Every structure is written in structure tokens, then in C-alpha cells.
């Protein structure tokens, strides 16, 4: 891990320099040219604001709250979306029955569910989780379905002649592993969408806590340096989640694909 880190620094010299340069330009423009904390807080303002929310502990509360909302949404989307996608991809009848419903619900922008989220769940974590769920469920269903549709027939037949004949076994031992790259890609897309929905839900009053809520709250107070801190936080956490997921999937689950030309 450590060696890896050093290697990363050596390899990513240009990237690091570029980042430092961007921050310097930002600081210069904000501090010397704009000179208006409302219009453009400087890098230094943002660092100060950051240290404030670290000291008073708000950052931890809000991050945890947002992560909780996100987890509720992702868990619900998994529990419902993956089995639905599997059923639709494997059983023609299930596809015919579910496809029309999904095709009608899918184009509804997830944020349009916010009023119902509040009516159904009140101002609870579940309400925010529901909006995340609404954003995540369809990419997960669609990609699971697609992965299942594209399981090469020869794998299914090879399994059959090796004595794997029940649907449940074929799904478990052949279709799921074969569809895993597609399912994982769906989850990644879904996480991106879900992250956006999370912020919007928190901003639009589905919650009175969370990173999204803080953006809106600080905007009302015209504390744009804090707004910017929360924006950057959202970006970083989103990036971390995505990287962690990709690392986990590529290293642990899709090792068999490494090096294959897809």
C-alpha cells in the first residue's frame, strides 16, 4: 500500500502540479481580482470555513446523515432492483409483465418523487433515501437485465451438460457471474445518479440535515464560503465512493476480466 502510494506520487507528478497551479490561480483571482467573498470565496476562505465545521463537528453529523440517506437508497435499490432485473432477464413472462410498468415509471425524473417522498415518509431519513432509491433503481434494473440477456448461450449449455439444470443453479452459477460486469457498471451509474438525487432531496427540504441541506442553508445565510466547502465535500465523497467501489469490483469481483479486451 505504502509503496503504491509513493509510486502514485512519482507517476502523478504532472497531475499534482496542475492541481496546485489551479488552486493558486483560484486564490489569486478571488483575493486580488474579485475581492468579494459572496461572489467567489478564495481558497483560504474555504480552508477556514472547513476548519470551522470540523471544529464544531457539523461536518461529521452532516456527512454521516448524507451517507445514511445514500445507504438507505442504495440498499432498497439493490434489494428490489437486482432481483427484478434477474427475473426480467431470465424469465420471458416476467419481462413481459414488468417491462410496461418500468417503461412508464422510468422516464419520470427521480426528483419529481420528492413531494410524495415527503407525504409518504415525512421529514425522515427514509424520505431522502426514497429519492435516492428512485434515482438508482432503474439503472440497476436495466443493467442487470441487459447482463442477463447477454449471457452467452454456450456458457448456459456448457453448464447444462455438466449437470447444472435447475433455473436457480443456472442463475447462480452461470448468469450472475457472467452478467456481473454489466451489473457492476449499472451500480456505478446508479451511484452517480443517486448521489445527485441525494443532494437535491436534502436541498429541497426532504431533510433538515445532510450535506445538501447545508448547501441550501448556508446559501440563505449568504455564507458562500461554506456553500463551497460543502460542494467540494460532496465532490470528494462522491469520488471516494466511486473509486472504492471500482477498486473493490475490479480487484475482488472482476479479476477474471483483467486484461481481456471487452
Amino acid at each position: 500500500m505504502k509503496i503504491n502510494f509513493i509510486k502514485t506520487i512519482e507517476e502523478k507528478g504532472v497531475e499534482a502540479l496542475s492541481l496546485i497551479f489551479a488552486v493558486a490561480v483560484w486564490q489569486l483571482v478571488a483575493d486580488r481580482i474579485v475581492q468579494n467573498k459572496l461572489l467567489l470565496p478564495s481558497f483560504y476562505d474555504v480552508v477556514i470555513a472547513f476548519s470551522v465545521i470540523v471544529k464544531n463537528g457539523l461536518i461529521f453529523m452532516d456527512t454521516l446523515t448524507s451517507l445514511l440517506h445514500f445507504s438507505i437508497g442504495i440498499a432498497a435499490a439493490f434489494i428490489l432492483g437486482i432481483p427484478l432485473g434477474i427475473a426480467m432477464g431470465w424469465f420471458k413472462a416476467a419481462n413481459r409483465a414488468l417491462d410496461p410498468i418500468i417503461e412508464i415509471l422510468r422516464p419520470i425524473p427521480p426528483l419529481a418523487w420528492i413531494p410524495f417522498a415527503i407525504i409518504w415518509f415525512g421529514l425522515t431519513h427514509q424520505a431522502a433515501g426514497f429519492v435516492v432509491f428512485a434515482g438508482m433503481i432503474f439503472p440497476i434494473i436495466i443493467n442487470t437485465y441487459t447482463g442477463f440477456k447477454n449471457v452467452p448461450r454456450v456458457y448456459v449449455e456448457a453448464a447444462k451438460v455438466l449437470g447444472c439444470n435447475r433455473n436457480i443453479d443456472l442463475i447462480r452459477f452461470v448468469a450472475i457471474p457472467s452478467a456481473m460486469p454489466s451489473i457492476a457498471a449499472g451500480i456505478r451509474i446508479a451511484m452517480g445518479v443517486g448521489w445527485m438525487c441525494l443532494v437535491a432531496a436534502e436541498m429541497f427540504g426532504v431533510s433538515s440535515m445532510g450535506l445538501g441541506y447545508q448547501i441550501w442553508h448556508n446559501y440563505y445565510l449568504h455564507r458562500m464560503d461554506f456553500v463551497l466547502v460543502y460542494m467540494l465535500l460532496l465532490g470528494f465523497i462522491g469520488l471516494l465512493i466511486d473509486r472504492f467501489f471500482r477498486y473493490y469490483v475490479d480487484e475482488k469481483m472482476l479479476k477474471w476480466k483483467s486484461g481481456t479486451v471487452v
Partner: protein
Amino acid sequence: MGQVSVKKVSRIFGKKEEGHGTEALLNISFDVQDGEFICLLGPSGCGKTTLLRITAGLETLTSGEITLNGVPITGPDPKRGMVFQQYSLFPWRTVIDNITFGLEMQGIKKSEARKQVEKYLDLVGLGQFKNSYPHELSGGMQQRAAIARALANEPEVLLMDEPFGALDAQTRNVLQDELLKIWEQKHVTFIFVTHSVDEAVFLSDRIVVMTSRPGRVKEIVKVDLPRPRSRTSPEVNSLRDHVLKLLEEERFSR
């Protein structure tokens, strides 16, 4: 025991009521003895794959029946192993875990299954590559692993659909030699599809030469030559000439 009887098998694809389906197989009959090495040879599109898939239980037939030891075949069964023309190893499993797949399906624990399949790994010479993923293997090694995977289930019949079709001539010859060694060691009936006359003459006890579509039996050629066979002896050459002539007739009769 692996005695296969093909009895008046026909297969028509598509809408036969309306009379414009594809007749793939027409009234095919022949018997395969227990432990025999049979090659199905015929022009491309004559229904070799279809016949093999019916025997595997992966395809249905329109009329007639195929029996294994007198019992009609109705679906896939581990008693009838199959090696496919395309690469069919599960890419998400390592070589050894591909080979244990059949045993795992029988409910044998993975660790136990791994012990049991070591001998098949050695048989096909893939001991060193047991923990590799299929994409790390050459085409020839993949087909070797596929053969080991089929053998690990201890089938009575091994069905092979042009398993070496995608390989270069050199690898192909090596694998033919190895396949014969395996066949001599294991008491298994081999039904081997090929469109290569050389391959059929080199490998089989008997060659079922098929007509062009709809596939029928044109002639069953007995290859009464001791093994190991030369690839170029006068006997082999005259046999090859004979079979080639049969195939050529099919080309012109179309």
C-alpha cells in the same frame, strides 16, 4: 457403458406446417459401440452440430430417437459430456474451478472436488496453469481444459464439436495425439464432429460420412488401421482419397 443408437432421426427447423422449414437432418440412423471412436464428417451446414446437440440433449428432434444404452435421450445429462466448437470455459472461473464445476453440481465440496480433478489436470497437461483464468490461456490450452472439464464428470459418451477447428495445424496435430491417448486410457465412447478428412482418418474407428443438407448418412467408412497411425502411409492416403471422393460427390450433387 456408452452405446449410442441413432434411429431415423430427422430435424426440421422453422415452420414445418407451412412447408418452408430448413431440413437439417433427414432419417439418419447408425449405431455407435461402447468405447468406440466415431467421427461425423460432412460438408459445412449438413447438420453435424445439430445431430451432436440432439445427442447432448440441447436440441430437440422432429422425429426418430437417439438412445444411450437403450434409454431415449430427452435432455442434458452429465453422462454425456460435450466439448463445444466455441471456447466455452467459464471466464470467471480459474482452470481448476472450471474442471470442478460438474463435481460441484453433484454436491461435492469445492475443496474435495479440487483434489479429485488433479488427475484430469495432469491428463491434459495443464497442472501449471490450474490457477489461471481462461483468458490467460491459448486456444489449444482452453480446449484441453474443456476436455478435462467434460471428463471430470466421468461421462459414458464424450461429444466433441470440431473442438480443434479454431486451432493452427501444429497445435491441432498435438491435440489429436493427446486426445487419442486420453481415449485409450479412459473407457469412454467418443463422437467427434469434424469437417477435416485428415482428422477423421487419423482419429476414428469409423467415419460417418454425411451428405450435404439435409444431412443423411452417405457411407460409414471403417478405418481398420492400427494406432498410432501415420498421417501419410499409403493405406491412410487411399482411405483419405476414398473419403474425399465421397465428399466431392456431395459438392456436385448440390
